[in-house]
C-alpha cells in the first residue's frame, strides 16, 4: 500500500567476514512492510549470517543495514560510524522477532513463562496483562492447553510454535526465521509452516531462511538465492524456482526440488 514509505529492511552493500573468511560480499536487498522474503541457498552460503546481522547478533563490517530507515548496530555521526552501547542495541532488537533452527526455548520455564519473560522483563508489561496476551498467542499457534508444559515435554513442532509465540509476544514489526523447520521430523514441519503462513496472511513482515521450496512458492513475495556470500539471483519465487537464470541456481534447485 504505502510504497513510498521507508522499506522495513534495506541492505546496502553489506559485507561481513570472520577473520579472513568473507561470508557476506556486498549484499544489497530491500524488504518492504508486509512483505515475505525467503532466502534459499546451500549451507555455508551466508544466509543465516545475513539474518543474524539484521538484529545485530553479528556485526556488519562494511556497507549499511537499515531497519525502518534506522542503522542497525551503529550510529552515524558526521562521516563516522559509532558502535551502539549494548543497551541501545538491545532496544533495537525488541522490535525484531527471531525464531531459531534449534528453537532455543528456555528449558527451565514453562511454555507460558517462556512467552511472558521478555514482555515483563524488557517491556515492563504488568504480569497479568502479559499472561493474558501470552495465552492468546499460545492459542493462536494452537497450543492453548500446553501453557504449563515444560519444553522437554513438547514435540519439536510444538516447541517451535511456542518459540514463535515467544517472539510475537514482543509485538515485533519484523520476524526473522532461521531455518525454522530444519530440525524437525518431517511430519511436524507442516504445523510450523501453517502458523507461519497465517502470520504472513496477517501482514507480518518476514524474512525466512528455509529449504522449504513449497512454502517459498506459496507464501513469499520475493525469493533470494544466495551462494558463496553473494546474492546470485532474486525475483518472484515462481519465476526463480520455475525458470532459474543462473547456472548455480539451476544446480542447487535441481538437487532440492
Amino acid at each position, binding site marked *: 500500500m504505502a510504497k513510498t514509505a521507508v522499506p522495513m529492511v534495506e541492505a546496502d552493500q553489506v559485507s561481513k567476514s570472520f577473520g579472513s573468511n568473507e561470508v557476506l560480499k556486498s549484499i544489497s536487498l530491500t524488504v518492504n512492510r508486509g512483505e515475505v522474503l525467503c532466502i534459499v541457498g546451500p549451507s555455508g552460503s551466508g544466509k543465516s549470517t545475513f539474518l543474524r546481522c539484521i538484529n545485530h547478533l553479528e556485526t556488519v563490517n562494511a556497507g549499511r543495514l537499515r531497519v525502518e530507515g534506522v542503522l542497525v548496530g551503529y550510529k552515524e555521526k558526521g562521516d563516522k560510524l559509532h558502535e551502539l552501547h549494548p543497551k541501545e542495541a538491545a532496544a533495537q*532488537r525488541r522490535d525484531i522477532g527471531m525464531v531459531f533452527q534449534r528453537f532455543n526455548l528456555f528449558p*527451565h520455564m514453562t511454555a507460558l513463562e517462556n512467552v511472558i519473560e521478555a514482555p515483563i522483563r524488557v517491556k515492563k508489561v504488568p504480569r497479568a496483562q502479559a499472561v493474558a496476551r501470552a495465552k492468546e498467542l499460545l492459542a493462536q499457534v494452537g497450543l492453548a492447553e500446553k501453557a*504449563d508444559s515444560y519444553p*522437554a515435554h513438547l514435540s519439536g513442532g510444538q516447541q517451535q510454535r511456542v518459540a514463535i509465540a515467544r517472539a510475537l509476544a514482543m509485538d515485533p514489526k519484523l520476524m526473522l526465521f532461521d531455518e525454522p523447520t530444519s530440525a524437525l521430523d518431517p511430519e511436524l514441519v507442516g504445523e510450523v509452516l501453517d502458523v507461519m503462513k497465517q502470520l504472513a496472511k496477517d501482514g507480518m513482515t518476514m524474512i525466512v531462511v528455509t529449504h522449504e521450496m513449497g512454502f517459498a512458492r506459496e507464501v513469499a513475495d520475493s525469493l533470494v538465492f544466495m551462494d558463496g556470500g553473494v546474492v546470485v539471483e532474486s525475483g518472484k519465487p515462481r519465476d526463480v524456482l520455475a525458470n532459474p537464470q543462473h547456472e548455480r541456481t539451476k544446480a542447487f534447485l535441481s538437487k532440492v526440488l
Partner: protein
Amino acid sequence: MASAGPDRSAAGLTPSPNGLTSAPSIKAVRLRHPWRTLIAVVIVIYLAAFLWDASQRKAFDWPTYGKYIFDQRISQAALVTIELTVLAMVIAIILSVVLALMRLSTNPVLRAVAWGYLWIFRGTPVYVQLVFWGLLSTIYPVLHFGLPFVPPFFDIQSRSGLSFFTLAVIGLALNEAAYLAEIVRAGILSVDPGQGEASTALGMTWVQSMWRVVLPQSMRVIVPPTGNETIGMLKTTSLVTAVPFSGDLYSVAHDIGIPIFDPLPLLLAASTWYLAITSILMVGQYFLEKRFARGVGAARPARRSKRGPVVEVPSYVSYPKNGDE
C-alpha cells in the same frame, strides 16, 4: 483410506481384533550368585567384629563420650562451626560468581586479575593463608578504605576492629571463592550458547540474560559440586586454629580433652557432630538439586497438570471408527 492391515501382518505383527497382542509373562528361575553371597557374608562378619571390638575398647572411653557428647561447650562450638561455614560459603559464593564472570569477560584486565586471584588462592595451602590473615594486624596495623589519590573515607584499626572470628571467615571465604569460581565458570559454560542468543534476540540486556536465563540453568551443574565444597568447608573450619581462632568444634573438643588426659572420646564426640551437620547439609542439597531440575528429564510430569500421563498409541494399532468410510 486407513487400512494399515495387510502389509503390516506380513511383517510379523498380527494384532488381535482389539488391536493389542499379549503373550504369557515369563517365569524364569533367578540366576544365583554364590561368590557375591560369600563376599557379603565375609564383609558383614568383619564389620560386626570391628564394631563389637570398638564398643569394648578402653581407649575409646565411651562413658566419657556419653558425658561430653551433649556438653553445652561442644554444642556451642558446633554452632560456631556452622556459623563459620555458612558465612564463609555465602561470601565465597557471591565472590565466586563475580570472579567467574570476570574470567569470562571480554575485558583482558578483568580476565587477568581473576586468573591471578585463582592462581594465588588456589595455589597456596589454606592453612598458610589462615596464618597470614592472623598476622594481618602486624602487617597492616591500619586499613584505609577509599579511592586512589583521594583521602580515605574511613580507616579500620586491624587489631581492635577485626576479631579472629572475622579473620577466620575472611580467610576461609577468599580461599573457597577461588575453587567455587571454577565451578561457576564450568556451570555457565555448560549452558547452550543458543540460550544467551535467544534472550539477546528478545531484547534482554546482558545482566537480564545472565540472571534469568543462563545462571538458573547453570545451577544444575553448579549445585552438586558446591554441596561438596560446603561439606568440605565444614571440615576445613577445623583449621581456623591457625588464625588463631579457637571457638570451633575441633578446637573446643581438643581443649576439653587435653587437660583431662583423654582426647579420644572428645574427638569422637566432635566427629559425631560433624557427621550430623554433614547429613543435614546433604538433605538440603537434595532439595536444591530438585528445585533446579525443573524442566529437565521427560519423566517428570508438567507442573500444575491434572491430567494423567499420555499413552502413545503405536501407529500400527488401529481402532474401529464409528461410521468408518
